């Protein structure tokens, strides 16, 4: 009997989602096949790569990152430098200085940074909070207002603050709403349902389903992404067809394999190489499991992952 190849194309697809405006706008999703299965059907929108900067101050960055931004004195300087780097398709600004248990910067101060960065770069913008749900509710709502017209992604609304963030970002200012759960497929779905019930258009939601650095419970991240894509495509579950964006950098650059100095761990080799390796490995695994965008920090990781995507799609 002759072999007839069967297409693994689904009768459902991931939502198409645009972030940013104008020539630089990026489009995520739209595919009706598993990640990188271009042999089943063309993938129109390749996964996208963004770079992350923070307002947390250069002195808190790993040495190798500091080197990449030599000469930058403000967040705006960093934003301009990052936007010019090879392979960068969007800019992610993490407002970690807002953390009440850290620098505890005021919302006004942080929103001013958001405005300054937005004025300095024309790339699509992602604004990440400080991981404190109360502060983020206020911060991301004000950031949504400040970025009116930029079609930015606010990352993210969580179960605890989705009403505030969803109402400001999704309803009042028509930005893209990030829906963040922590490696819990049922909660990922529930949060999308709750945001939709609030009135947020499902077509304007991107999911951060939670992440980890490779080696740190990462297999749960992978299996969660696999199951989300399976439900979205094979069960045509509209509540899970939102594209996935994964902030890789904030996880990777916090684990000892990436940041321990060579002096402390001589047997592990050069710190910078290790950090980049961790970031690339984590991002590559996220992408093949279904991330439609990854956020990285080291310019060398951005270059490598961009090249990987170009080769595969």
């Amino acid at each position: 009997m002759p072999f007839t190849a069967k297409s693994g194309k689904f009768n459902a697809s991931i939502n198409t989602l645009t972030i940013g405006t104008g020539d630089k706008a990026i489009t995520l999703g739209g595919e009706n096949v598993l990640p990188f299965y271009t042999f089943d059907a063309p993938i129109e929108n390749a996964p996208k790569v963004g770079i992350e900067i923070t307002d947390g101050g250069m002195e808190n960055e790993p040495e190798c990152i500091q080197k990449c931004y030599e000469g930058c004195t403000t967040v705006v300087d960093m934003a301009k430098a990052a936007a010019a780097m090879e392979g960068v398709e969007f800019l992610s600004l993490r407002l970690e200085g807002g953390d009440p248990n850290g620098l505890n910067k005021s919302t006004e101060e942080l929103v001013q940074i958001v405005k300054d960065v937005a004025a300095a770069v024309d790339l699509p913008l992602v604004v990440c909070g400080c991981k404190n749900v109360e502060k983020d509710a206020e911060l991301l709502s004000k950031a949504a207002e400040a970025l009116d017209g930029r079609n930015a992604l606010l990352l993210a609304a969580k179960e605890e603050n989705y009403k505030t963030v969803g109402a400001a970002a999704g309803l009042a200012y028509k930005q893209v709403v990030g829906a963040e759960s922590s490696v819990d497929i049922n909660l990922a779905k529930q949060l999308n349902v709750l945001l939709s019930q609030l009135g947020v258009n499902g077509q304007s939601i991107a999911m951060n389903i939670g992440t980890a650095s490779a080696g740190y419970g990462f297999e749960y991240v992978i299996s969660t992404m696999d199951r989300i894509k399976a439900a979205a495509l094979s069960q045509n579950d509209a509540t899970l067809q939102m594209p996935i964006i994964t902030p890789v950098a904030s996880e990777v650059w916090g684990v000892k394999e990436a940041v321990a100095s060579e002096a402390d761990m001589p047997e592990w080799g050069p710190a910078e190489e290790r950090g980049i390796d961790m970031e690339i490995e984590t991002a590559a695994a996220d992408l093949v499991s279904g991330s439609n965008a990854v956020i990285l920090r080291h310019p060398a990781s951005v270059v490598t992952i961009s090249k990987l995507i170009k080769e595969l799609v």
Partner: protein
Amino acid sequence: MGKFVTIGERLSTTAPAVNKAFTERDPQPIIARAKQQLDAGAVYLDVNIGPAESDGEDLMKWAVKLLQSEFNNVPLALDTSNMKAIEAGISVYDRTNGKPIVNSADAAGRIEYLDLAAANDAICIALCNGEGLAKDNDERMMYCQTLLERGMEHGMEAEDIWFDPLFLVVKGMQDKQMQILECIKMFSDMGLNSTGGLSNNSNGMPKLIRPIMDSALVAMAMMQGLTSAIVNPNDLRLMETIKSCDIFKGNTLYADSYLEI
């Protein structure tokens, strides 16, 4: 495995209000009943226009166009003993959200409904009975085989023939209930889709009892592999049971709001 397919049964000439609306081509009562069913989660709507011997073609076209234009091309089951009316309905049917269902063929006088479905690339409900009720599952499976072969001879995919074991009324045929459930398992083991008028089981029971019996039966039938049923979607208990069973079967992914979507 796909989600359980509910076919809303409330647009039927057996309801006097619907009969009157069909006869008078009065859209409002039809639209209102259709909306109630869709809001409650019905996937397909059954359009039962009765024998409709005189004006069936015109009536079915009118009903299909009315419902599909009003409700974003809702998929429909076309239910009448007038074959020409079914064909007429399909001629104006939009398939965006699913193939039309021909309701229904059997292994005796109505076997040509399968030919009709095949010729029109439709799904066909296939009742596993001949002249009169099957006496046991050997007979049911014989009809099943006849219907399957007939459909495939005419070019149908097996998945487009939805086998109906014929649910029987508990009051009077209680001893046959497990047979029906076993029959569903046989369909399922053969990889076949199945459906049926599930609420038949509770005919003649007090109003308060019926949703309880229907829900229990649908859960047992889904366990056996039933893939669809013709139901009253406005029976909340029944719909909640179906959604819950879909979760247990892995047909849908659980979320706390699963009953609301």
